[in-house]
Structures are given as C-alpha cells and as structure tokens.
C-alpha cells in the first residue's frame, strides 16, 4: 500500500473549561477558526483566545473536503490571496513541526470545448502575470503528466488540453487540523468543543461576548468562522450575510496501489479526482442545487460524478464506492469569500468560501487574524469585504472556482 500516515501521540491538546473572558473568541473550530487562532497567537501576540466549537474540532467541512490545494484563480484579488495561501502551505509543515502530508503533485484543469480552451489559456496568462505557476498542456502532454487519463477522441467530451499548476497538490486534512490545534494549544489558546453559541452580548453597537451552551463568555472581540452556518450565527448578532448554504458531497473508493499521480479537475464534465496517500480515490461532486443543511445530498449527483470519472479514467470502472458523505457549504453569488469587518463593532466575519475553503485555510486565518488584531483588513482581504456587494466590486470567480474546487 501507499505511504502510511505518521503516528500520533494520544493527546494533542487540552480540553479546558471556558474562562469567563477572553481578548478574542473565535466561533467555529474548523480549519479557518484554528488558523485564525494560530495567527493571532503566533504572529500578533494575542494568546488570550478561545475557539468555541459546537461539535468536535474540525468535524465539519474540514473533515469533509477533498483536500485539494491550488492557486490558479483568474482575477488579481483571488490569485493574490490563494497564492499567499499556497506559499503558507509550503512553509506550514515546518512552522508547525508536523508532517501533514502536503504533496505538491500538481493539478490539471481539463478543457473539453473551444470555449474551455480559450478560457483556460487566458487563465494561464493571467496566472503567470500574477506570479502563479501555470502552463497550457496539449492532450499529449496531459497524457505524460497523467498516463491513466483517456485522451482519445472516442468519448463524449474529448480532452482538448489542460492548464497545469505543478505546485498544486493535496494534504491530509485531519492532520492539518491536528497540527494547528496542537500548536494553538501550546500557545495558550483554549479550544472548547461541544460549546454552541446561542447568542451575543452587546453594549450598544459593540459586541462584548457570547452566550453559549457552556455559559456566558465575555470577549473583547469576536470572529465568526462558522462556514455553512455563518448566516445563522451572524443573524443572532443582528448581521445579515449574502450567503446561501448548500449540500456538497464527496466520495472515496476502496484502497488501491498508487495509480493516479496528480489531481485532475474538469468543470465541463464535472469531476475532480485525486488519490490519497493511503490509496483511496477521492472524488468530489457538485453542490446540490437547493438550500440545504442536512449534510447529505442526492445520489443522482454522485451518479453524474461517477459517470464523468469513469469516462475520463476507464480503469476506474472496476473501482467501488466505499463511502459518500456531505457537508454544508456557504456560497456567495460571486463565488468569492467574505473576510471582513461587520456593521457591529468588534465583530468580524470570515465566510463564503463555498466549495473551495480548504485550500484557502492558511491565508484565511492569516488575513482574518490581521483583521481582528488591527480592526482593519490585511491588504490581501481588503477586496473581500462585505461592502463589495454594495459597491459592485464583485470578484467573479465562477470560471476558476466554478464547480470544481
């Protein structure tokens, strides 16, 4: 079998009782909440921090994504933040002293139509101008990178080429969460599980704490990183968010010897697939079209996904689905996240990562921590403010973000 994951100690963090007050309370103990706490403690010297999580640490979308990391986004604003994120991914294993199996095996984004080809080549040029590694590959070159892919013309949507980002890759998502949690804990951050926020304490227009299922916690500042439930949480503080929450599914096969050397994504036939270190094929589906919080979606979405995968990779026809699951993703209408101050003083929001939050985890935490610490955004997240929906400066990433994150 492929590479065995590293061994772990029995405990990586304490499970403290909440104190009565903190300088900063982060709502949501997923990847984004944990990185935010990490950067607050490690880079801004703010260690009197609690992360409150209504379930268990990293049990939401952090445990449910397909672990793909890339930065080949079209627009300057997105390329800047996602490329920063990729650079942070490259240094975090050493910084956190934890091998979370970040593997830069590259990503192919396939083109199947002339429109795809034009858009993809444009994106390659835009990426290069933004310092993001990107190249355009012919079908033959696609075959060189990924020998098991069907580049023949006997399929419904033959491959006409692909963009390739060699520095992209995958990481083991639960290990990423554990690495962050351990370091947060070492730095003095309280990670409080089974602690659901039920309300906010306000003094005029200023937030001064949260009501939780483990009691009242006073806070100098509160940062929301609640992913699919962001609108519910923000609404309790009187803040409305332009978010729609959808089910998003993924699946894995049984374990195989390593056969798939890279990450392959196709917006057009709607599939993205990689092979995890343990050996399972990891496939992501598209969102279900309706608003949903059930952490499950329709099986016909999985079927469509499998059909596309088998056409692109004929050998996968003999594989079996081992497990499917769903999460709740918070989508915005421009397919870009919101990392922003809010109309309520000392209340900050980090949401709207939609189907692509995992890759953004480090830069999300870095910029959100900066926003909270300084009460003003980092230059990288200035464009990702709530105000953009009023000013009209949207960051339309449906092309590069699209179905396939």
């Amino acid at each position, binding site marked *: 079998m492929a590479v065995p994951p590293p061994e772990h100690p029995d405990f990586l963090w304490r499970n403290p009782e909440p104190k009565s007050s903190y300088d900063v309370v982060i709502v949501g103990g997923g990847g984004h909440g944990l990185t935010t706490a990490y950067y607050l403690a490690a880079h801004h010297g703010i260690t009197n921090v609690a992360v409150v999580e209504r379930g268990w640490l990293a049990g939401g979308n952090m445990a449910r994504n397909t672990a793909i990391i890339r930065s080949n986004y079209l627009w300057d604003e997105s390329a800047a933040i996602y490329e920063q994120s990729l650079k942070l991914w490259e240094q975090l294993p050493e910084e956190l002293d934890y091998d979370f199996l970040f593997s830069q095996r590259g990503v192919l984004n396939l083109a199947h139509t002339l429109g795809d080809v034009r858009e993809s080549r444009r994106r390659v040029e835009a990426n290069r101008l933004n310092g993001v590694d990107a190249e355009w590959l012919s079908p033959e070159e696609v075959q060189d990178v990924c020998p098991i892919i069907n580049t023949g013309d006997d399929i419904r949507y033959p491959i006409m080429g692909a963009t390739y980002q060699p520095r992209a890759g995958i990481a083991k998502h639960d290990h990423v969460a554990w690495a962050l949690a351990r370091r947060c804990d070492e730095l003095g951050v309280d990670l409080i599980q089974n602690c659901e926020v039920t309300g906010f304490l306000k003094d005029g227009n200023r937030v001064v704490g949260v009501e939780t299922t483990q009691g009242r916690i006073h806070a100098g500042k509160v940062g929301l990183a609640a992913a699919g439930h962001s609108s519910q949480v923000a609404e309790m503080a009187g803040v409305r*968010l*332009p978010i729609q929450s959808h089910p998003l599914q993924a699946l894995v096969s049984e374990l195989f010897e390593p056969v798939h050397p890279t990450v392959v994504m196709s917006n057009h036939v709607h599939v993205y697939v990689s092979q995890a270190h343990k050996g399972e094929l990891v496939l992501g589906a598209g969102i279900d079209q*309706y608003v*949903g*919080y*059930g952490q499950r979606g329709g099986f016909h979405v999985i079927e469509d996904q499998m059909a596309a995968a088998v056409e692109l990779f004929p050998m996968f026809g003999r594989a079996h689905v081992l497990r499917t699951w769903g999460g709740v993703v918070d989508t915005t*209408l421009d397919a870009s996240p919101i990392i922003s101050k809010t109309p309520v003083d000392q209340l900050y929001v980090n949401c709207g990562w939609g189907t692509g939050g995992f890759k953004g985890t480090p830069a999300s935490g870095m910029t959100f921590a900066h926003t909270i610490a300084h009460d003003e955004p980092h230059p990288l997240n200035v464009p990702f403010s709530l105000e953009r*929906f*009023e000013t009209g400066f949207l960051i339309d990433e449906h092309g590069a973000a699209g179905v396939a994150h």
Partner: protein
Amino acid sequence: MMLIPCPHCGPRNETEFAYGGQAHVSHPEDPHALDDAAWARYLFYRENPKGLFAERWVHSAGCRRWFNAVRNTVTYEVQSVEPIGPRPPGGRPAESTTSEGGHA
C-alpha cells in the same frame, strides 16, 4: 433524490426540476428610489433559513411551469406547493400554504 409534488403534474423525481431560490422576491417598484445598500439587499441577499423555506422550482422536464414550494432545508421534506402567485397573507412559510390551496 427528493420527490417533489408539482402542483400541475403530481409527484416527480427531483431531476425533472430546476431550482429558483427564494420565493416572493419582487422587483423594486421604484428602482430609482433605492440606494446602493437597498440594491445590494435586492440583488444579493436572500433568506438562508435552517428550517422551512418558501422557494421557487420549475418543472423543466415536465410542464415547464414555475411554482412555489415550502420545503424544510434540514429534512428536505416538501411541506406544501402552490402555483406561482402573490405572497400569501401572513407571509411566513410555516403558515403560508397547503398543497390544496393556492391562488390560481
């Protein structure tokens, strides 16, 4: 897969339908009276409830007609449907409609 009761055709598979998001979002009567914040509310802000949601569907592969539904966004159960029409009196999804009702 959900079984969605089209008010014109009866229960059909979800794959025959396309989603239209929140129901009863009307175009502003006087667009010039709206400031940027109000426009943003109209264009980008929608209800996102965890629970009952009044929403629009279109039976694309059937009668091709739009209709309104009240669906639970946690259980995905469709509570009621009605032909397209004005927002029912009361306005809250829980008390809005039944499948026998409607404004046709």
